[in-house]
């Protein structure tokens, strides 16, 4: 049995690394860890390499990601109005920049920018490249600054992991490559630009559909939560706040965007709690109380 497990581990790791598929590698490392062939540290470092390999395999530059993100944001902002509250907007940018700076990818082509959508819907969206949109309804549900940090850090996690970009199929990238490669000698005149615009449009539709209709996969959501815990902890926020927020969301039974695009709140809460458990209880510090006071002064909470 152990021999079969070892062989399976080797096959999955080799396949995963050759195919640049992090998920296959992670299956292999999980089996390797469970059967005692790999330590948890070794598993973590192999998974990290696999993630890097997968990202490197994507034929996209930071500036392309930026233009895709702008287009996705332009679609959202064609449907929702921006909340006209300079003080609140500055505040969420301060929180957002603090957690983005503590993330694994603090720099993107156009940088991180945070905005509030003027709607009661409860939702938040990460556009590729770093534009993050959070609704007034979502902020209203938060009780303190650390919870807002947890929400924004989760979205920064999606940007870090390029989850929006991942919804664009490899086949689509192949077509982009063909269209752009053909046009390389003619420096964009006519036909090639037209077909690239169509492909761009299709790519935006892919991303938008994932963000609004289908939602990210459970694995992507779980990874964004784990990232949010890391970033908030690094920044000095209380990571427990994400669990508090998810618990309130679950209890409220709210129907709406956040629940449709972020499925399984109960499962997410369970995973977040499990990740927090080894650190033990995290009491509210004097600094956190001070942060809560500046949050309350802005009257964002309902």
């Amino acid at each position, binding site marked *: 049995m152990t021999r079969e497990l070892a062989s399976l581990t080797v096959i999955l790791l080799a396949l995963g690394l050759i195919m640049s598929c992090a998920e296959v590698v992670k299956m292999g490392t999980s089996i390797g860890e469970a059967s005692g062939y790999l330590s948890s540290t070794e598993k973590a470092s*192999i998974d990290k390499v696999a993630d890097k390999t997968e990202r490197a395999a994507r034929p996209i530059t930071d500036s392309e990601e930026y233009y895709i993100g702008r287009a996705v944001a332009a679609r959202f902002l064609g449907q929702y109005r921006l909340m006209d509250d300079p003080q609140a907007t500055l505040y969420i940018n301060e929180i957002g920049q603090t957690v983005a700076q503590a993330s694994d990818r603090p720099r993107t082509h156009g940088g991180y920018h945070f905005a509030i959508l003027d709607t009661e819907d409860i939702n938040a969206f990460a556009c590729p490249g770093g534009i993050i949109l959070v609704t007034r309804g979502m902020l209203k549900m938060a009780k303190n600054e650390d919870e807002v940090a947890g929400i924004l850090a989760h979205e920064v996690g999606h940007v870090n992991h390029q989850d929006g970009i991942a919804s664009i199929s490899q086949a689509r990238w192949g077509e982009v490559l063909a269209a752009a*490669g053909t046009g390389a000698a003619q420096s964009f005149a006519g036909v090639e630009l037209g077909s690239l615009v169509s492909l761009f449009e299709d790519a935006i539709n892919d991303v938008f559909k994932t963000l609004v209709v289908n939602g990210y996969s459970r694995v992507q959501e779980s990874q964004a939560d784990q990232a949010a815990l890391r970033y908030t902890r690094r920044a000095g926020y209380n990571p427990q706040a994400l669990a508090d927020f998810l618990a309130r969301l679950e209890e409220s039974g709210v129907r709406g965007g956040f629940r449709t695009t972020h499925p399984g709140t109960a499962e997410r809460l369970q995973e977040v709690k499990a990740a927090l458990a080894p650190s033990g209880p995290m009491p509210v510090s004097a600094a956190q109380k001070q942060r809560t006071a500046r949050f309350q002064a802005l009257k964002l909470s309902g």
Partner: protein
Amino acid sequence: MGTSLTGWHRLLIKAGLLVLVLALFPAPASAQTLRVVKDQDCLRDQAQFFGQPVALVKQGDQLKQLGMKGDWYQVEFQGKQGWIHQSAVSTRKVSLSALRGTGTAQAATADEVALAGKGFTPEVEAGYREKNPNLNYAAVDRVESFQVPEAQLRKFITEGGLRP
């Protein structure tokens, strides 16, 4: 027998992984060139975000790597030395043939096409905007103008008992 097989398999896994990882990530040359991928950024006098700015760099600028500390590269640019976060630069090389526009469809690789600015570019965005006038790019530009000045962010972090 079982014990020796276990030991043998463990060794096999680790050796195989080492080979694969080394093949995928060859050690970078000590004086490699880094290309700025962020719109613009600052070189800092220390390997941290609130280090003093030493020089301004823009997308496409080539930086000579001198060293590395954690996630930060120590670099030289136009005679000035400083630090830049690894997420602001790329180590991928740009093909000269693709840049000059002499590459062919067969010869161009995904990286060459994307790095030579032939993929999704401002021109493509302009075409997309023309086709979709209902999109609110004005609001996107407004969102991109939301910036927190460095000194203000530092104050926010300090006052909130947070870590820079």
